[in-house]
């Protein structure tokens, strides 16, 4: 096992995070003629199929806090969230010119319509709106979804001039299974000893998985855990919170840092759900399409973009996480104008109130700059929790 120190690993992740030219992905593509890169947006795409086609899945999560959006604002009204405008900005300014195709998952109407904008503006690129079922019966939604997966596979085969064999797909499934194991280990490690795995570090580590080939990302997580376990950082008197609502447009890194600095350890979150979307190991043998389909239907995370068939189950994912992580409270941090998060929030709040779980709500944009109000709000929240727990 590598002896790279945490600082070095995190610095590498930070470099990947800040590089909006996606140099690492460009280098991957240039390393061998004929390689293709497929961009995807939140919240979930089956990266296994892209990988099995010999292509690089590239997570495109907007332009972040530091990118100046000049052109993108001409594409969207002021009341629409920031991620589509900064994503357009990335494309218009050539930062995604090496990307051969884009996938837009069914998360909301804004991302859905962005797929149409892509078709209009970049008609030479492969564009796939990736619809996932809202019916979870095997013989209904399952049949639909399996066929959607097959169409995706065929589309990528056509783009790449290749055939995706069952063997290749099962191999990719195994690699992503392993990746999820390590993602979950990092999350478990942070939850167990949050002072040794600050959330900003974990965030950057997970974010690296948006750019790196899965094999490299898994290796990076192994190295990080090995190094972080040796860290001897002081435990702070912080409360433990779950942060939710940030599954699409990402919060600024400073917001994550601010929350921890103000006295809240983030012990779970829903950033980059694609890393943890599937909750069980997918069989790496048999019919891979059916296996991917079944995993989505029966073993995938609950988010606001997914219909919950059973009223009694609504919010159970969040409640289970709170319990599993022994969290003291919840911070609802949602991007402004985010329909899924903001419409879902009142339903989640009802369940937290019924279970007497403290929470606060806040809104952000990926380029929010003023962190003082955030620190004050989360700091007060942390103090309140500590006072309550002592009473």
């Amino acid at each position, binding site marked *: 096992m590598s002896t790279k120190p945490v600082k070095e690993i995190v610095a590498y992740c930070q470099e990947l995070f800040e590089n909006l030219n996606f140099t690492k992905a460009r280098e991957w593509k240039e390393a061998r003629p004929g390689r293709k890169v497929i961009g995807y947006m939140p919240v979930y795409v089956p990266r296994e199929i892209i990988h099995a086609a010999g292509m690089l899945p590239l997570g495109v999560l907007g332009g972040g806090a530091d990118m100046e959006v000049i052109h993108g604002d001409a*594409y969207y009204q002021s009341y629409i969230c920031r991620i*589509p405008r900064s994503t357009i900005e990335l494309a218009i300014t050539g930062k995604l010119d090496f990307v051969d195709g884009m996938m837009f998952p069914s998360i909301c109407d804004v991302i859905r*319509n962005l*797929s*149409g*904008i892509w078709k*209009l503006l970049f008609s030479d690129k492969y564009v796939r*709106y990736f619809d996932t079922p809202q019916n979870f019966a095997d013989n209904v939604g399952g049949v*639909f979804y399996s066929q959607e997966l097959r169409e995706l596979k065929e589309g990528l085969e056509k783009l790449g001039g290749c055939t995706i064999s069952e063997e290749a797909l099962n191999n990719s499934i195994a690699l992503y299974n392993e990746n999820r194991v390590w993602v979950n280990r990092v999350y478990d490690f942070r939850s167990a000893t949050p002072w040794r795995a600050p959330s900003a570090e974990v965030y950057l580590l997970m974010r690296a998985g948006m750019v790196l080939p899965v094999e490299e990302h898994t290796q990076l997580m192994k190295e990080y855990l090995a190094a972080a376990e040796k860290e001897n950082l002081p435990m702070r008197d912080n409360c433990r919170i779950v942060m939710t609502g940030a599954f699409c447009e990402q919060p600024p890194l400073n917001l994550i840092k601010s929350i921890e600095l103000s006295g809240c350890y983030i012990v779970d979150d829903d950033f980059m759900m694609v890393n943890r979307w599937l909750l069980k190991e997918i069989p790496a043998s048999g019919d891979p399409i059916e296996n991917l389909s079944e995993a989505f239907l029966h073993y995938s995370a609950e988010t606001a973009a997914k219909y919950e068939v059973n009223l009694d189950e609504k919010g159970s994912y969040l409640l289970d996480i709170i319990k599993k992580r022994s969290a003291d409270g919840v911070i609802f941090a949602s991007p402004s104008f985010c329909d899924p998060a903001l*419409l879902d929030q009142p339903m989640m709040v009802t369940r937290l109130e019924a279970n007497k779980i403290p929470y606060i709500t806040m809104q952000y944009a990926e380029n929010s700059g003023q962190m003082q109000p955030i620190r004050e709000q989360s700091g007060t929240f942390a103090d309140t929790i500590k006072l309550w727990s002592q009473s």
Partner: protein
Amino acid sequence: MSRQDIVKPKEVIKSHSQEVQKEMITRNYDKITSGTVKVSSTFVPGNLNELLMCFDIANNLPEINAIQNAMRKKSGEMIMEAERGGHSEDVCTYVKADIGMMAKGNIAPNGKPFPDPDVLLLSYTGCFTFLKWFELLREQYKCPTVMLHVPYAADGAPTKNMRDYIVKQLKEEVIPTLEKISGIKFDIDRLRGYLRKSAAAEDDLVWMLEQSKRRPSPIDCYFGGVYYMGPIFTAFRGTDEAISYYKLLRNEIEERIRLGLCAQSPDGDMPEEKYRLVVEGPPNWTNFREFWQMFSEAGAVVVASSYTKVGGVYDYDNFRHDADHPLETLADYCLGVYTNRNLPTRVDMLARNIVEYEADGLLINSIKSCNSFSAGQLVMMREVEKRTGKPGAFIETDLVDSRYFSAANVKNRLESYFQMIDQKRRAGGSAIQAA
């Protein structure tokens, strides 16, 4: 034409068909609130009225309730009530108007309380918010909720997989749920009968839409259009009432054509048609009359609009309900609603409208509440301009939240737009030259 040219009557002038429709809507609200029938809440786009009728279930549409409340100036306080209850200022005001209405006693426009729905038919068609909206309502009503997921026609045309998926949901989920709630066994021949009636009314509806190709247009296909679309998109498609209504409307329009009348406005027949527009996006409902008058007073008539396709598209690819394929035709109907079509298709529809209806340009009324319509409209406007050579313009309002209707701003933008069209004409670039 100046403001002085129109003598404003005290009351809004309504046509006979408008009066008839008002009575139809009142009767439907009386039926819903009577306590004698089972009631389903469901949405306008891709609504399954014919199917609900097979189970004697009344159709209550929350968007229509929000519109009714907005036109009565009641939606503002309902929205504020929902926001006080924890709903974000950023989200759809239809949802908040509905939730606020519940908090304020859930009173229907006829003054009687709405009964709790027996079922929420979540026809998830062309709008993500629908999914959350009915999850929120389910929290309150705790009634059976059945989802019909209509996949997005992202590549311009529905696929067989999408169609099969919808049909399967109808067979496996929706119909069994409605049977259970109503105690009525599904009769496919009864559905076929309703679908035949739908198709008959739809023929007259399309005839009506196409009359605005005439000069002058005898109808306004946006402000007037929302009245004309009412029965087909709500609780009347598949009924004899709808067939009669569209016959009546057809006769009325034929008479207007015979008399050479311009489109009707709230103040009577427009004396002159100066501008012909295609409009994209829903109207504002809180200031509907004022909004309409900004057009009619300037002599602007809307000859085609995307909003009159919000419940279903009939003219673009000639869809009619097909009684020979009853479940498949319901699937096709849902798949084809305007906001379930991808942006290139929407651009194509608007551009074709501009050419075929000889419009002067495209006006987009961008709605804060409605990302399904609004996200991407600026790109659509540029694409339509590129394809047609006609100028586009952009205004911003909201559906049922008057806080986002700034009359002065809208009027200024419209006046500038009309000036732009005038300039284009002087430069020889507008369709009016051909008149």
